[in-house]
């Protein structure tokens, strides 16, 4: 069972209190973008066996969106951070490097 700390409530929230929101830090390509960018925005997703960054919503709690850095294989949670964050925070990246050296995700290592 996945348990994530909601950065707004400060509680350990069970997965069943949360709603998964898919991959984190997507850049939106809308009207005026190239077909390739739009297609990638709609359909191309990371599917890592290992370190991953996701969006979650504390839907049965405060209702806020937040981010989680976790490992899809071990279910280890590296940390959660607010939605108002456009890329994985450096503290979390450093922490992951300490635990899982050599990790990478999109352009981050």
């Amino acid at each position, binding site marked *: 069972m996945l348990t994530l700390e909601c950065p*707004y*409530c*400060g*509680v*350990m*929230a*069970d997965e*069943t*209190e949360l709603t998964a929101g898919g991959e984190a830090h997507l850049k939106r390509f809308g009207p005026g973008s190239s077909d390739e960018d739009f297609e990638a925005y709609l359909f191309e997703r990371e599917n890592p066996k290992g370190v991953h960054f996701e969006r979650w919503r504390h*839907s*049965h*709690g*405060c*209702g*806020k969106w937040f981010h989680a850095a976790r490992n899809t294989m071990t279910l280890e949670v590296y940390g959660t951070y607010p939605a108002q964050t456009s890329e994985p925070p450096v503290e979390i990246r450093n922490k992951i490097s300490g635990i899982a050296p050599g990790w990478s995700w999109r352009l981050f290592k």
Partner: protein
Amino acid sequence: MSEPTSALNRAEFKGIAKVEETGLHGMITLRGDQSSAAIKKAVLSVAGTVMPEQREAIFSDTGGVVWMSPDELMLLCPYSEVEARVAALNEALAGTHALAVNVSDARTVFRVSGPAARDVLSKLTPADLSPEVFGPGQVRRSRLAQVSAAFWMEDDETFGLFCFRSVAQYAFDLLKVAAAEGSEVGYF
């Protein structure tokens, strides 16, 4: 003019804990920046309490203030006073970016009491209700089986709880099953 009625008309159940629907309550959603001096002052003057910290629920003789999220509070008061309190809030918050709305009829309030109250609620929610983690003065928004709810403790054996009015019967039925005679867990 029809009389306002609460969802379950003060239904009660007594099993290993007592479950009561507690009738009509005034409830005001107050959204805004909780660090703002104007909002703190409005809460103090209208609800009579200081601004709650994260997950704090503060009660007074005539109501209370429940922390709902970093930008949302729920002010509780007698049902008959709610319009006057919304007006007082709006007056106190004139010119401040905030929102005060009467949501009294949106939710149903229950009380679950007795020595087994923690066990009864723990059958329905994934939230940690152990006394070291959760006690009087705190609020937790979580899930009761399939519906959202918020609960707080009035004292060490009494929970106050609200959920949306549309699921009041479901929540009451859940609480009755969880409090059924002979279903003691004895964990807490």
